[in-house]
Each structure stands twice: as C-alpha cells, then as structure tokens.
C-alpha cells in the first residue's frame, strides 16, 4: 500500500487510469478522521494518491476577459482568505473564515470539501450560490458539472472511479454576496444551518443556497427567482411583504432533520432568519453605492 506523489495533472490522470484501487488524499482533514476512527478502511492493494504536489491543483487564475475565477481543487482555505479571492468571491472567503481552526484551514482544500459531499460543507454552500462549475478530469477527458449537481446524497458525488476534481470555475459578477452560518460556538463548528446569498446587479438576479438543511446543499430556486423579480434593482430595495415571501419560500425549500447538532424546526427557522439578514445587508450595501 504505497503512497504515490504525482506532480502534474498528466501524471495523475495516467496513474488513475493504470491503477484500479486508488484513494485520493488532499489535506487529509476529512480522510484522516475516518481512518483514525475506523470508519474508513484501507485495503492492502489500495494505492494512496497524494494530490499535494500536483502543481496545477494549487493555481488561482483570474480571467477578466472570460469573467471567471479559476481555482485549482487543491487551493486551501487559508488561500481563500486573501486577495484576489476575497475581493472577487467574498462569500467564499467568508465561508472559508468559518471553517475549523487555523490548523484545519492550512491543510484542508476546497476540492476535499466538495468531494466529501457534506450538506454542511461551508465552501460548497458558497459555491452553489456563486453558480460555480467543476471541471472533472480523467484519461477519457474533461467534463463540467455545476456544483449544485455534483453532490447527490450525503458523502456521495458524481465522480467516476478514475476521475478527480481539477478545478472550480466561479463567474465574476458585480453586486453583493455574503455567507452566514449558525453553530454552537464562534469557532470550530460544523454548521447547524448556513446560507449564502449572491445578488448580481448586472443580471438582476439573486441566488440563495442553504447548508445543513437537507441531504445536500440546496439551491433555493423558487425563493431565488422570486427575490430576483421582486427586488427593485434600480433603488436596491425590496418591500417587507416580498422579503417575507422570500423567507417563507426559503424555509419551504429546506428539508432538514433532527440530529445531535440541532432540530429540524430550529434549522428551518434559522435559514429564514439568515436569508432575511443577508438580503437586507446586501441591499443596504448596494444602496450606498448607487
């Protein structure tokens, strides 16, 4: 059971094509917890593929021509806290800031957060609201999948055995965006409920994503559309009755459960409160820049 250290996308693709029992390892912050506690087991013929030396996976590229921010899957939380990402995708930076501790943020990656496919993934929630797309790569070529379509159930995603997440493409938009999460303390918590809101003042659209209130992160489609059409974009305002409807639609799209972290009822309540706060905060900020 050796550990392989590919250094490029080419080497990685070839390795996954040749070897049939591979386990990908990025920052290890999800993977090692499973291994230490015995919920993940390695078979003797498993080959661990360490992704950390794959150069392309840690690149950050801002393409103003195509209006897209490209993040390699191996970009770590810590890297998301600074420019240019903090300026172009602030809700992703805000999400990153809430993840674990400094120790977790120096090791954990955005690719690992996506692949883990947890409904509580803070990065996933921000990326769904940002309408980001994943580039999945294998020896058969590349394909793109919307982040909102990537996770299909808790811990299940659409990756094939020989495929990996190469990068995430985030559209660059004008407007306002924010991420908020509720947990039992201010640091080191998996969210009880999380909400990301992106208000695009170019396309006059709103996208609301909800974390920890369903089997995967949820894009609240109806609420997003209703908000997009009822916000008066010229004056960056929404009537309180319309905002209440957005909140109710957000709650209606949530399908939370009771578990050791919280109750379904509280979670439904919380996503409504967070959505309302974020939209109000966003519109107030947009009004100031009119």
């Amino acid at each position, binding site marked *: *059971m*050796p*550990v*392989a*250290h*590919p*250094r490029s996308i080419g*080497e990685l693709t*070839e*390795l996954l094509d040749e070897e049939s029992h591979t386990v990908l*390892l990025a*920052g*290890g*912050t999800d*993977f*090692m*917890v499973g*291994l*230490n*506690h015995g919920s993940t087991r*390695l078979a*003797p013929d498993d080959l*661990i593929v*360490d992704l*950390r*030396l794959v150069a392309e996976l840690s690149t950050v590229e801002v393409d103003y021509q195509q209006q897209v921010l490209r993040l390699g899957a191996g970009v770590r939380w810590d890297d998301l806290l600074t420019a240019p990402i903090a300026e172009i995708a602030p809700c992703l930076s805000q999400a990153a800031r809430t993840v*674990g*501790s*400094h*120790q*977790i943020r*120096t*090791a954990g990656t955005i690719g690992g957060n996506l692949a883990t496919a947890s409904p509580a993934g803070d990065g996933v929630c921000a990326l769904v609201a940002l309408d980001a797309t994943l580039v999945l790569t294998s020896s058969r070529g590349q394909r793109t999948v919307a982040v909102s379509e990537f996770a299909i159930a808790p811990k299940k995603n659409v990756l094939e055995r020989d495929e990996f997440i190469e990068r995430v493409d985030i559209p660059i938009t004008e407007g306002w965006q924010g991420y908020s999460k509720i947990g039992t303390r*201010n*640091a*080191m918590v998996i969210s009880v409920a999380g909400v990301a809101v992106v208000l695009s003042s170019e396309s006059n659209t709103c996208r609301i994503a909800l974390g920890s209130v369903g089997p995967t992160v949820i894009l609240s489609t109806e609420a997003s559309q209703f908000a997009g059409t009822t916000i008066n974009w010229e004056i960056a305002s929404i009537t309180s009755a319309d905002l209440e409807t957005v909140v109710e639609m957000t709650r209606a799209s949530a399908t939370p459960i009771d578990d050791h972290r919280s109750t379904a009822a509280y979670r439904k309540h919380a996503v409504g409160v967070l959505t309302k706060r974020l939209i109000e905060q966003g519109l107030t900020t947009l009004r100031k820049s009119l």
Partner: protein
Amino acid sequence: MTSKSDERHFELSINGNRHRVTDSYPGESLLTVLRDRLGLTGSKGACEEGECGSCSVLLDGNLVCSCLVLAASVTNCSVVTVEGLGGSTDVQTAFVESGAIQCGFCSPGLIMAATNLLERTPEPTVDEIREGLAGNLCRCTGYGRIIDAVQVVVQQRKNGRS
C-alpha cells in the same frame, strides 16, 4: 515522474534530523509515528479528529494537526515538533511565568500554535490571539492566562527591538 513511497518503511525529516520509520501500519498518522514509533512524546493526542489541537506541529512551516497527517505521505516535508523548539524559547518561558500551564497536556500544542501565530502576526490583538488559538482546547486554565502569555511575548519582543 510519479514517485512512490513505501507505506510501512520510510524516512521523515523531524526537527532537522532524518528518522527511519519501520513497520508502520498502513494509514498511520504522523502523531502515532512521532509518539509510538519514534518516542517523540512531546506532541499529545486526545481526539485524533482535529478538534483539540494538542498534536499541533509545523509541517513545512505551516501549523497542522499531526493526527490528520498521513505519516507516509510527508516523507518530502520538514516537520517541527515542540521538541524542536528546545526548552526555553520566549513563548515557552512566558507560558510558564504567566501561569498558562496547569496540567500541561495542552501546552505543547498551544506553544506551537502561539509560536506560529506570532510568526504570522507579530502584534496580534486579543481577538486575533483568540482566533489564532481557537483550534487548541485547554481544560484547565480558562484561556485568560494563555492570552496573557502571548501578550507578554509581544511586549518583550517590542521592548527588545526598541
């Protein structure tokens, strides 16, 4: 070309020395290798899930939980443990003198975290200290004296420079 390292027999670079690890079991964490294979018991283990920070070490200069590092995957990295600090850095002395150590179980991890925080942010605010050390749990001190200790170091370093 893709290099491969053996899962069970490998070499690690710790505190500037090469250490040969033999008969490591597959999937063993760096924490287990440090403590049980190499006898470097400074780093502590409590949760083995990244929550307590007592296993904190520097990996290529970055603060990480050694319980979340697959030992066989870091053969090409440099590891610094609390043993690598010696025993009398200003951070260590300030922890002792400020009463930031009671049972001492959390101290190696907190000292690594505080040392790393002050490298990244030489003059942190109280909020920055709290955020920087949020990944390290202490059952005894109530944290006040730990924050004091970090502030003592900041003050000493400032005085030393002026």
